[in-house]
């Protein structure tokens, strides 16, 4: 069943910037920015819609020059799906139950933490949110995205 699951990375309406060991992805629809660590980034790049998970495991292991457990790839896929970085495709196999990063750390041991996938995410601010608070009152209109609370546009 898991061989029939062919995850495909979403590519549209994303701005991607590559750093040395991380990949930054800006979702121009949700206005969220994500930082994928190396493992998460390698899994995401391997999701071409034609490669089964078992092959992604081999590919990522080869690129990290270390054996990678299949659960690690599933954990990355869970996070990528959570942040809408995968295309909605066929349903995932039931056997690939979702597992938390913490549980996986316990299962694989602390030494495996370096290769666990991690995606950090933020909501990008509106222009007015990235500005100092301005004093306001009933006669002064706050900029769009802010409202007058206790004498300040917040």
């Amino acid at each position, binding site marked *: 069943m898991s061989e029939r699951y062919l995850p495909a990375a979403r590519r549209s309406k994303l701005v991607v910037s590559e750093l040395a*060991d991380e990949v930054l992805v800006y979702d121009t629809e949700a206005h969220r920015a994500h930082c*994928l660590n190396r493992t998460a980034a390698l899994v995401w790049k391997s999701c071409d819609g034609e490669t089964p998970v078992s092959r992604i495991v081999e590919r990522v292991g080869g690129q990290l020059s270390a054996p990678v457990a299949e659960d690690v790839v599933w954990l990355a896929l869970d996070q990528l799906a959570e942040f809408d970085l995968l295309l909605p495709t066929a349903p995932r196999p039931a056997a690939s139950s979702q597992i938390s990063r913490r549980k996986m750390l316990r299962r694989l041991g602390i030494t495996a933490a370096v290769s666990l996938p991690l995606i950090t995410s933020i909501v990008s601010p509106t222009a007015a949110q990235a*500005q100092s608070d*301005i004093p306001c*009152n009933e*006669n*002064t209109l706050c900029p769009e995205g802010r409202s007058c609370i206790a004498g300040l546009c*917040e």
Partner: protein
Amino acid sequence: MRFGVRVSEAEALRLLAERLPPGWRRASSTSVDRIFSLVVGGEGRGRGVRRLNLLYAGAARAARSRDLNDLLERFESCVQLYVAEHAPRRVFVHAGVVGWRGRAIVIPGRSRSGKTTLVAELVRAGAVYYSDEYAVFDGEGRVHPYARPLAVREGGSLRQTRRPAEAFGGCAGTGPLPVGLLVASLYERGARWRPRPLSPGEAVLEMLSNTVPARRSPGRALAALSCAAGTAAALAGSRGEAVRAAEAILKSLGA
């Protein structure tokens, strides 16, 4: 970028000019990106009648107040935000910035996170003042000065008082600097500055979450901030009193 300003009384023009962003120049062109109009109030025709001061941004009323200072503050804020969001060749991040030994210390953060207080203490400790409002990045990730006088909140007041860098024993920087250190700190009473290091990607997210044109120009913002983070160390954590945090930050840079 070009702004037009119309006033109902000539004297108001001088007051508005004091509120323009640092480095502004007069332009001869009559074509502008945005026009502001200030109608000065005062005594009305009838006895006991006072007209309000009015500020318009384009055709929309931005503020009205009996206190002209309210409008001047709002004018400054509107112009500043417009420049920060629309500047074509710069990326504005809401942050404090100082220069230290030829590199910039950038302190991004939301309003009232303690940026200005920390910047003031760093300047007192010998750093060069760059900004207490915006880190202005070019495409190569260097920070340019936006050295308006520091806006200090005194005695728990919501209104800010402006003080030049010289009032803190320092001076303002003039040229662009590469980033040496990014400090994502939040004031917390009684906290000790024990920061954790951030990866370059996390450092970019910290800056992006305070970037004015993040939504308008995400590609340009990511490119500039990635360049900046590539040359810098980055730390995040809660801090207590600014004096101690400033000492620790400079010490971490070999002071």
